[in-house]
C-alpha cells in the first residue's frame, strides 16, 4: 500500500509539473486583469507542493497500512475488462444489445448464476433499454447493425 501511495504521489507530482509547464504558455496577466494562465499556474504550483509533501511524508513513515490488492481485486479487473469490451462493441451491436450482453456476462462471472437466468436477464435488459431509453425517452442511442 505504501508503494501504491508513493506511485500515486509521484503521479500527482508529474501532473502538477505538467500543469505548470502548460499553463506557463498561456497569458498570465492581461491588461484587464489576470489572464487565462493565472489560475492554472497557481493550481499547478499548489498541486506540486502538496505532492512533494505527500511523498516526503511517506518516506518518513514506516508503518504498513493494508494491501493495495485485495482478494477480489481480480474480479473487479475482470468486470472492468468486460466493460471495455462491451463499450468497444456498442457501435456494432447498439446500446440495447451491447449492454444486455454485458449484464449477462458479468452475472455469470460474479454471481455464479445459472446460464439460463443470465440469458433471461440479458433479454429482459435489452427489451428494457430499447423501450425505456429509445422508445419512451427518445434518446438517440446508436442501434448498431441489428437496428435495435
Amino acid at each position, binding site marked *: 500500500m505504501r508503494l*501504491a*501511495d508513493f506511485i*500515486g504521489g509521484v503521479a*500527482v507530482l508529474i*501532473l502538477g509539473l505538467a*500543469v505548470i509547464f*502548460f*499553463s506557463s504558455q*498561456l*497569458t498570465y496577466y*492581461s491588461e*484587464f*486583469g*489576470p*489572464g*487565462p494562465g*493565472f*489560475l*492554472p499556474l497557481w*493550481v*499547478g504550483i*499548489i*498541486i506540486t507542493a*502538496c*505532492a512533494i*509533501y*505527500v511523498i516526503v*511524508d511517506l518516506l518518513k513513515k514506516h508503518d504498513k497500512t493494508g494491501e*493495495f490488492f*485485495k482478494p*477480489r*481485486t481480480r*474480479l*473487479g479487473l475482470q*468486470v*472492468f475488462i468486460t*466493460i*471495455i469490451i462491451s*463499450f468497444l462493441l*456498442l*457501435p456494432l451491436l447498439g*446500446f440495447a444489445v451491447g*449492454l444486455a450482453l*454485458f*449484464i449477462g456476462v*458479468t*452475472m455469470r462471472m*460474479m*454471481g455464479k*448464476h445459472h446460464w439460463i437466468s443470465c440469458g433471461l*436477464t440479458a433479454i429482459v*435488459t435489452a427489451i428494457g*433499454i430499447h423501450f425505456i*431509453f429509445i422508445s419512451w*425517452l427518445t*434518446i*438517440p*442511442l446508436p442501434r448498431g447493425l441489428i437496428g435495435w
Partner: protein
Amino acid sequence: MELLSNLYTGFSIALTLNNIIYCLVGVLFGQIVGVLPGIGAPTAIALLLPLTFKANPTSALIMFAGIYYGVAYGGTITSVLINVPGESSTVMTCLDGYQMALKGRAGAALSVACIGSWIAGTASIVLLMAFASALAKFALRFGPSEYFALTAMAFGLLTVFGGEQPIKTIISTMIGLLIATIGLDVVSGMPRFAFGVPQLLGGIDFIVIICGMFGVAEVFSSIEEPEEGELLKSKLHLRDLFLTWQDWIASRWAILRGGIIGFIVGIIPAGGITTASFLAYLAEKRASRHPERFGHGAIEGVAAPESANNAASISGFAPLLALGIPGSPTTAVMLAGFMMWGIRPGPMLFQKNPDLVWGLISSMYIGNFLLLLINIFLIPAFVAILRLPYTIIMGFIVIFASVGAYSVNNNFFDVWLMLGFAVLGYLMRKLQYPIVPLVLALVLGNLSENSFRQALTISGGSFSIFFTRPISLIFIIAAILAYLSPVIRWALKGLRHRTDRSPKLDSI
C-alpha cells in the same frame, strides 16, 4: 404575510397531480437508493439527470429533492437491520439502531428514526422558507469579490470536514479546479488544456464526470470489498412500530437538538448530511445523563443523527437556491441540473422563477409526509429489496452511467471519458484522496475563477478589493482559518499533550 403568499404560490404548484407524481416517484426512488449500499443520492441523481433534459425543471427538481431526503430515510433500514449503513449519512445510526434490533426493538428504532426525521424535516422546511428568502435578499449585495471569497471559503471548509489527510483534500480540490478550466476560457476565448482535441473545447461535462466517479467507480469498489451483513431473521409487525411513552420522553430533546444541529450544519458549505448526523450523535452523547448507554441501544442515539441528517438535507437547499453555491455533492449535482436547463440559481432566482423556488420548497412538505407513511406501512417491501443480487444493481449503474454519458453530446467520446473518470475515482478512493472536494471544486471552479478575474478587473488589479469590502473580508478570514485548521488542530494537540505531561513533571 409574504411567507404565506409564497406558501400559497408553492402549494398551488406542488399540489398539481403531475408534481405529486414526480414527488412520489422521487421519494420512493430515494428510499430504494437509501436501502441499497453502494449507490448514494449524488449517483442516483446524476444517473437520472440526462434523462430529464426534456422534463419541466420544477417537476424534475421536485423529484430530485425527493430522492435527496428520501435517501436519508431509506439508509436507516439497513443500518438498523443489518448493521451496514445504506448511506454514509446513516453510519451513526448503526451504533445504537442495530443494538436495539438485537434486543428485539428494531420496530421502535425504525419508528423513532422516521418520526424524528419527519418532525425535524418539516420544521426545517419552515425555517428554510424564512431563511432562504432572507439569504437571497442579503446576497443581492454580493459582487464578484464576495462570490470569489465565498467559493474560497467553501474550498477551505472542505479541508475542515475532509477527513484525516488535509493535504490530499487540497490536492483533490485543486484537481477539480483544474478540470473546470479545461476548454475555452470565457474571458479571453483561448483554449486551455484541450490539446487540440475538438471534444474538449467545450469543457468536460459535469454529468460525465459524476456518472464515472460516483457511479461506475463505486461499482469497482463494491466488487472488491462487498458490504455484506446478515439480515436479522425476526419479523416486523405493525404494532412493533409504536413507540412507548418512555421512548417519547427519551427522544423528544434528541429530535429537537438533532434537528437544530442538522439545520445549521446543512447550511455551511461542505457541511453535508453525514457531518450533521455525526455531530448530532456526539452532541447527544455529551448532553445525556447516561452517556454509557450509547452504543448499547439508546433510542436517543438513533433519534438524534436521523433527525439531523434529514434537517441538513433540507437546509442544504438554502445556499443552493439563494447563492447558487452547493454545500454537498448532492446539491452540486442539482446545480449541474440547473445549468443543464439554463437556469442560474442565486438571489435573482427568487425574483425570476418564484414558481420554481416555492413549488420546490412546498413539495418537501408533501414528500416528507409521503415518506412518513411509506416508512410506517411499507418497510417489509424495502427489506425485500435487500435480497436483490448485487450483480443486477451493478449492471443498472453501468447501463445508466453509459447511457447518461452518451446522451450528453451524443458521442462515444464521453462514454470512454466516463470510464476514465471511473478508474480515477476508484484509484483516488483506494489511495484515500477524497472525491467530494473534487466534485465541489469542479462545479464552483468557473464561478470562482471568473469572479476573481472580474473583481481584479474592477479594482484595476489591486487585491485590496477582497479585503476592503466587509462581507468579502469575513469570508476571506473564514477561508484562511479553514485552510489553517490542520495546523491549528496540530498545535492544539501539541499544547494538550504538554499540559497532560506537566503534572507528571511537577511530581518529579
